[in-house]
């Protein structure tokens, strides 16, 4: 228990101390939220842009921590031999993995607090019964984390870094984060098969009207949450 607590503390601290990670996990989401809430240039289709932007930016926050931050850090730990070295300590791989999961969830809570406070300040009024949104965010966390570890466990650290940032940018554009999926014409069908769009599709009704998300977004989220970690478990190379 002491080892797990220390490992979680170390993981969270390293995440919060990496400037480039903070930019992706808090800086960019906060900037998008504030900028597009105040500058009405997006076809959000809602009365106040923030009502559309807040759920999307929260989805981006989940993606940035569970996929970009976790993936890049794990890739470099693998290339520096950290994962290999930890393999011959009593910490063990299961507890290392558990520590990473817990630290991702803790950072996500911090992000929700910060970005949620900004959104409330901009006039966002989420529906109070948002339990389904939490469930959708959890499923998406496993989907993104699995994807991140599948890449980090097989690719060179530098390629993994570039790819994780590239996927972040693409999913930012076609994930229903700033542009509504309905405006993406041909891209929408493809985008809806990816976990980012499935998450925003789930968060909009859950946080906006407090109604259950559509079945298809649950199907996509569950499928990614099962398949991506399984692929990571099967392909991950520790050194």
């Amino acid at each position, binding site marked *: 228990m002491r080892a797990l607590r*220390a490992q979680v503390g*170390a993981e969270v601290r390293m995440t919060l101390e990496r400037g480039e990670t903070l930019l992706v996990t808090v800086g960019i989401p906060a900037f998008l939220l504030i900028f597009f809430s105040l500058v009405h240039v997006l076809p959000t289709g809602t009365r106040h842009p923030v009502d559309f932007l807040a759920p999307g930016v929260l989805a981006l926050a989940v993606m940035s921590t569970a996929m970009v931050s976790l993936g890049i850090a794990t890739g470099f730990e693998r290339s520096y031999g950290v994962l*290999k070295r930890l*393999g*011959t*300590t*009593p910490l063990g791989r299961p507890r290392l993995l558990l520590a990473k999961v817990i630290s991702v969830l803790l950072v996500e809570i911090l992000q929700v607090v910060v970005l949620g406070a900004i959104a409330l300040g901009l006039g966002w009024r989420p529906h109070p019964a948002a339990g389904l949104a939490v469930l959708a965010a959890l499923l998406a966390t496993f989907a993104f984390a699995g994807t991140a570890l599948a890449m980090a466990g097989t690719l060179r650290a530098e390629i993994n870094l570039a790819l994780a940032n590239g996927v972040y940018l693409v999913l930012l554009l076609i994930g229903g984060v700033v542009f509504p999926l309905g405006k993406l014409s041909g891209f929408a069908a493809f985008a809806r098969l990816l976990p980012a769009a499935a998450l925003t599709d789930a968060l909009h009704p859950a946080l906006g009207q407090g109604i259950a998300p559509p079945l298809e977004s649950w199907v996509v989220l569950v499928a990614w949450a099962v398949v991506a970690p399984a692929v990571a478990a099967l392909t991950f190379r520790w050194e």
Partner: protein
Amino acid sequence: MSAIDAEDLHVHYGERVALDGISFSVDAGEIVAVLGPNGAGKTTAVETLEGYRRPTAGRVRVLGLDPISDHTRLVPRIGVMLQRGGVYAVMSPRRVLALFASYYDDPRSPAELLDLLGLTGVAGSPFRRLSGGEQQRLLLALALVGRPRVLFLDEPTAGVDPAGRLAVRDVISACRNEGVGVLMTSHELDEVERLAERVVIIDRGRVVAAGAPGEVGGGEEEVRFAVDREIDVLELAAALGVEVVADGPRDYRVVSPSSPSLVAHLTAWLAERGVSLTDLRVGRERLEEVFLRLVRAEGERRDR
């Protein structure tokens, strides 16, 4: 029970044979050094004992346990220093030692280890800012923090400056004196001569010699000398009545135990030709010479 046991260990990477049946053991309170040229299989041997690789054939035991199937019971009792890295780039020595200490039930104090290895001054700097020698010393400290009964050290002094080397040697000796079994690899043969009770020389996956550093070659006593210009080896050999070998342009070796008359004859022969001695030593082959001779011979044997 030995601290470490390897019996007829084979490790293949696909088609490539990394270890071709090696056997050796390390007792508690003993330092054994595995020597060999690059690619000989040293790291493969050590990493198989650490549980990173599965033997293709043969048997390995550490403290009587199987490194893979008894992994959970074994890891609290071993200390590992990998050949490179293994530390978070952004973490300082103080923080990473405290983190590793939390993994063990009865860890050594991080502050004491920092002091022991001369790292107190850089205890707050991130790992990536440390010099190569400081990084190596931190890796050793991390191997020691759990009070291991067996230590695996893969090139522990690579890149360490002479003062740091002394500290590393002292720390390793102290562990041995407390009953820890130490298996190390090294390219620093004079260091191994000073530190290790026994050496195992491997080449191309096989043991080519094993024994105490002073006896491993089984070599004869010799008289070695250096002079200020080249001499005729055959002429000198005829004059002395024993074999004389040229090791370098001005380095020679008389293959015979030393005696007062041999040395007198040698110096007289040199004096007649106006040649000055620049060095004269008596004794067995040094480990480095044994090593080079064995590895070269093994290479020639394989090439035939």
